[in-house]
């Protein structure tokens, strides 16, 4: 079973995103901020990371930059999922190594679509 790390400081968003990822066949772990996400990746690299931008302690973009420098850190497919919806943010995320980008609000169809585009699910 593929694994998905859901990173968001909102418990509600984590719950919604987790439910959607689980429906797509992923086992999920949650992190409240970039630091927790980084620690989770040190323990075990997930297949997918759904990543919020603005979080206390360590932001999504900071986490992503650190992740891509870790050993094995180029492996996870990272999909940003954030209210930041302008071109500057999106370009910065792609430059930092994000594979896809979701602008909130999102629904299950959008997540499924993006996961498919980056090859996390087939068909």
């Amino acid at each position: 079973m593929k694994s998905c790390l859901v990173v968001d400081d909102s418990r509600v968003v984590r719950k919604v995103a987790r439910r959607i990822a689980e429906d797509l066949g992923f086992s999920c772990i949650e992190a409240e901020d970039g630091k927790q996400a980084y620690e989770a990746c040190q323990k075990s690299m997930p297949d997918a990371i759904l990543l919020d931008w603005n979080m206390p302690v360590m932001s999504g973009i900071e986490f992503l930059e650190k992740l891509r420098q870790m050993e094995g850190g180029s492996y996870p497919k990272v999909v940003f999922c954030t209210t930041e919806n302008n071109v500057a943010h999106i370009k910065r995320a792609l430059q930092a190594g994000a594979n896809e980008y979701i602008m909130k609000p999102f629904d299950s169809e959008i997540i499924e679509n993006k996961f498919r585009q980056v090859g996390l699910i087939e068909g």
Partner: protein
Amino acid sequence: MLWQERFELNTMRLTDFDIYRDLLKEKSGLIITQDKIYLLESRLGPVAKKWGYPGLEALTLALQGAPKPELVNDVVEAMTTNETSFFRDTRPFDQFKAVILPKIMEKRAATKKIRIWCAAASSGQEPYSLVMILEEMKAKLPGWKVEILATDISNDILAQARQGVYTQFEVQRGLPIQMLMTHFVQDGDKWQISDAVKKQVTFQKFNLLDNMSALGRFDIIFCRNVLIYFDEPTKRGVLERMAKQCENDGFLLLGGAETVLGITEEWRLLPEQRGLYVRKDSPHLTTAPAVSKTASA
């Protein structure tokens, strides 16, 4: 008995329903069943309002007289569905890239011209998706001229398509973020497709029930998710007239729930390619074993 329950809740009389059913069948080929009464009511309310009728009953009465063609047109447009998204269903676009284009490029190496028809283009996502694929493959297409004709029965939806402005929600359905960055400009909470993409598509109003010969002949026809709304004779008519507009080595793509099987012999499924059809006399069918004639009595 669901429709009966709905019918009791709603105000539309069955005789009124028949008027719309017959009108839509005649003008667009669209088949509606009684379980769609709710759809008639929700979509025709705004039409009645636009024409100054107090409600649906007054609109129905007007249609029974000698209605203006514009009114009939508005009714038909309101009822024809327009659900679409960029790279909808993925598969046809993968086939376009991996199967169709290589074969067509081989066949058209001399003229370097390809004509594509999106026969139910709706708000433009399908033809624009094709342009974005072609842009990605630009390096392999030097000197090639690809013409994309995108038609729809609805003027309103074509106006939207020509504008090429989409909501944040729409650009996230199927469109890879990299393509959004390359081909769109952000304008407030909307996303506008670039002029470079827009100018590669010609939009034109066209009813699939009409004579197709003026459109010319095509190498590739996308006709997805529209036949499902037609009855069998209408499907057959459209498919057979489309076969005449398709080059004999051309291709037809249908929607996921659509098939030619049991409807017409003019098209054949390309082996192992779901939803992708070629003409019955297509050179691409060479994989079919030649039947050797055995001596008969």
